[in-house]
């Protein structure tokens, strides 16, 4: 209880404030912020966990995320946990490029070792990164899939975007990926709108892996699924994360998801990171009252 956030982070082997050596991390984020409304300095004061709100008393702006630092290395999964409104999904959308960040640096290094400042890329370049470098699996499959297109066609999408022009090769790659995510091949030519929730998530995962991304972002990937279906999808994702060298960020409100998939975790409340550490240690001995509350809820 006496450790500061910074000390605890170092103890947990997760350097937060010190600048990370660039090549070690797939993604290194410093000072990420997202404000909806007035983006001036004035909006920051009076928001955050100590004030119990993300809404600026001065300007009425929503400080959805502020001062967020995180790093994730190849082959590693980082959890981001918090309740709805904590800013965890905002952070993920800013990293994905689905919306522009208000502040902060995002340094991305791909498999091949080439490095980009994501925050300095144009929207067009950000979209290009999404073809083969960065993939997202959304909670809502409608955001990640084209519903009236077949499972195979959805997987073909990023392949054709990456320049694949051979029908036979596209088809065998789609087959391989759908097999890997346990989608019955007999159904690969059926439109995904006819699929169950769990099966849609499996197709989304297959699609996200199509071009061997360096960074995989999972946004509440099993929320809304029945417990038994969710368990199956989690098992699958755990296996995939173990067997590939992809760096993953898993956003969830559910500690059991974070526990199953990640080794390190950051806890967010009212747009700020309140605690960071190794997942199993944080679960065992949460320091921040909010983390304790989340752990208690998961254990309850």
């Amino acid at each position, binding site marked *: 209880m006496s450790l500061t956030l910074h000390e605890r982070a170092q103890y947990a082997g997760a350097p937060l404030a010190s600048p990370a050596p660039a090549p070690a991390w797939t993604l290194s984020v410093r000072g990420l912020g997202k404000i909806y409304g007035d983006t001036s300095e004035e909006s920051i004061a009076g928001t955050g966990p100590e004030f119990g709100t993300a809404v600026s008393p001065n300007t009425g702006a929503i400080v959805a995320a502020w001062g967020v630092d995180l790093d994730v290395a190849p082959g590693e999964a980082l959890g981001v946990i918090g309740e709805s409104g904590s800013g965890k999904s905002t952070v993920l959308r800013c990293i994905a490029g689905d919306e522009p960040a208000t502040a902060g640096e995002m340094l991305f290094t791909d498999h091949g070792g080439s490095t980009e400042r994501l925050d300095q890329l144009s929207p*067009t370049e950000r*979209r290009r990164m999404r073809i083969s470098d960065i993939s997202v699996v959304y909670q809502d499959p409608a955001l990640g899939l084209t519903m009236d297109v*077949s499972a*195979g066609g959805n997987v073909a*999408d990023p392949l054709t*975007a990456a320049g694949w022009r051979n*029908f*036979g090769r596209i088809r065998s790659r789609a087959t391989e990926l759908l097999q890997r995510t346990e989608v019955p091949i007999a159904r690969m*030519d059926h439109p995904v709108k006819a699929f169950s929730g769990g099966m849609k998530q499996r197709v989304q995962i297959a699609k996200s892996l199509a071009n061997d991304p360096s960074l995989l972002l999972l946004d509440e990937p099993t929320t809304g699924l029945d417990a038994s279906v969710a368990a199956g999808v989690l098992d699958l994702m755990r296996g995939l994360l173990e067997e590939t060298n992809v760096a993953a960020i898993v956003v969830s409100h559910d500690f059991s998801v974070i526990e199953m998939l990640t080794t390190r975790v950051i806890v967010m409340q009212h747009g700020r990171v309140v605690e960071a550490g190794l997942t199993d240690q944080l679960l065992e001995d949460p320091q921040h009252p909010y983390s304790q509350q989340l752990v208690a809820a998961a254990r309850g």
Partner: protein
Amino acid sequence: MTTLSAELTERSVEQLAGDAAPRDIFDELSKRAVRRALLTAIAVPGYQVPFSSREMPVARGWGSGGLQATLALIGADDNVKVIDQGEDAGVNATNLRRLIVGNAGCGEETETGLADVIQSRHRIPEEPLKDGQTLVLQVPVPEPLRGVVGSMDEQRRMHAEGDYAKMWVRLYEDIVRNGVVSHSADYPCLVNGRYVIAPSPIPRFDVPKLNDSEALVVLSAGREKRIYAIPPHTRVEPLTFEDVPFTVEHTEGAACVFCGSDDTYLIGVPEEDGTTRWVCSDTDWCSRHRPDDDTETETEGEVSR
């Protein structure tokens, strides 16, 4: 001019347009606006240029875009040929030709090789076009991404970024469902390696004629207010997977009953006995390639629907 088409011209214009075509259906300022759009279209092959499409004395969707492009391009010394599905004598073609001649004071022509501007709906003539000629294609739907994505903003973004993945997915789905790419007409093509276009509903048979064409090809959509172009000697490639070759329509053993051609675009006419009679879609070309040319004028009338 054959006497038949001259007769048809008289009759249909009376029926459709009333008295002689007014000379002022398209003023000089409007022509200039279309020419400016056309210059952009030629400079950026395949890019859809917006233009302030005017009301014309034909219904939008019945060649009003083509008519404006033709009137902007043609001069009094030029000859115009107008075809509808390959036919010079059809009612729409005749009406459009009459309007063009009335406004521009140009000559009219049915022989492809002698026309300076050829306005066409759904066909490219059989006779290869030459340097100096212009083909104006009437376009009902200029946006090849319509039906692929609904949002016009998204369509524009895809063109701007050359992001045609969803179009390829559509071709993939087509092959999965039908075994072939089922686009029989309006087959999506990549122009100059940059923009995907809708080539207007010409049959696949005509698509290869767009590649490295000697003539300028102008595509104009009046209702949608878009004009785009394929300058001479531009690369035009139908979107095709490497291992699923692009094929054109061909029926084994079919030949035109009038001229005997088996290498033109043929239309099948079902007979009462269940067989199919094949005739050239390009009626002018057909009439010039018959064994004994002068006795066939009457039959030509029967071919046209």
